[in-house]
């Protein structure tokens, strides 16, 4: 079962991973975006880690809702409300259970991804975080490791796509050939989840 400590480890691992990869995310965001994805997420997840330490919420649902709220407030780019909505809706769906199973988390994340898609209006194939998150959450029903592999594949598979959402969509065909920064940071979040599971 996954308890509050697991979810704290997930958020801490995500913050550390975003810190390590901030430059790469921003570099990916330079040709097709506005070169702020890494620094925006870095700022947001630093606040998430600090807030979790200070307020120590004690259920999985509270942890994710608090993290989501911080991302909405502090990121400053579109990824803030998008990831914030993902985590908040996932947390709300988990309710006040002290522990949840991997299957329950997969189910809750599915609701979270649906909320993110409703907010951003993106569908699979639009070259966004959705291309990572949808297959990853689906695979999480099978195992943590399957989720990591699906996330990584989903992110890499955005390279040949033409962007249909966000600033990159203004570039039309010129967005082809670049891996999407949002899909890439989504793969980091999923990898951090798997890291928290110790797998």
């Amino acid at each position, binding site marked *: 079962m996954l308890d509050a400590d697991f979810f704290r480890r997930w958020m801490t691992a995500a913050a550390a991973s975003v810190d390590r990869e901030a430059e790469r995310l921003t570099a990916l965001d330079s040709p097709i975006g506005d070169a702020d994805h890494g620094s925006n997420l870095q700022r947001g997840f630093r606040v998430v880690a600090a807030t979790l330490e200070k307020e120590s919420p004690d259920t999985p649902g509270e942890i994710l809702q608090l993290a989501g709220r911080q991302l*909405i407030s502090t990121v*400053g*780019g*579109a990824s*803030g409300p998008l990831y914030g*909505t993902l985590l908040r809706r996932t947390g709300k769906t988990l309710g006040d259970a002290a522990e949840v199973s991997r299957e329950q988390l997969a189910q809750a994340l599915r609701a979270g991804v649906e909320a993110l898609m409703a*907010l951003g209006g993106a569908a699979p194939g639009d070259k966004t975080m959705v291309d990572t998150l949808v297959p990853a959450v689906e695979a999480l029903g099978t195992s943590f490791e399957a989720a990591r592999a699906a996330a990584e594949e989903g992110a890499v598979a955005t390279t040949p796509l033409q962007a249909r959402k966000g600033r990159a969509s203004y570039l039309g065909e010129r967005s082809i050939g670049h891996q999407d920064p949002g899909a890439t940071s989504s793969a980091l979040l999923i990898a951090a989840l798997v890291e928290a599971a110790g797998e």
Partner: protein
Amino acid sequence: MSEAPAKLVGIVLVSHSAAVAESVADLARGLTGGGTTAPVAPAGGTADGGLGTSAELVSAAAAAVDRGAGVAVLMDLGSAVLTVKALLAEGDELPENTRLIDAPFVEGAVAAVVTASAGADLAAVEAAATEAYTYRKE
């Protein structure tokens, strides 16, 4: 807008750029003419002065213009739109009766401020701002 309500609708202008939000607010106020002007607050850029959207600036601006008659929020694009939507979904981050207005930013802001200053209610302000989409330039 038959009877002018005593309280005016507040307008919040959210842009990626503080300068854009402030300038559009000035423009809309300037085009309103004499008499009472509805409360307008810009919420532009990030809290540290960069380009982007600050949820905190948006919440503060909405609180500042809330006179009890509702708050109309207009945005430019991308994260500005998503941040306002996420704040509305949050439930308690914005004053009661705050509405996201789907309108072109500059034209919609002028229409909203002029209408709100005339004492229109929130629905009429929204209708005027949204109607700005139908104004063709050619």
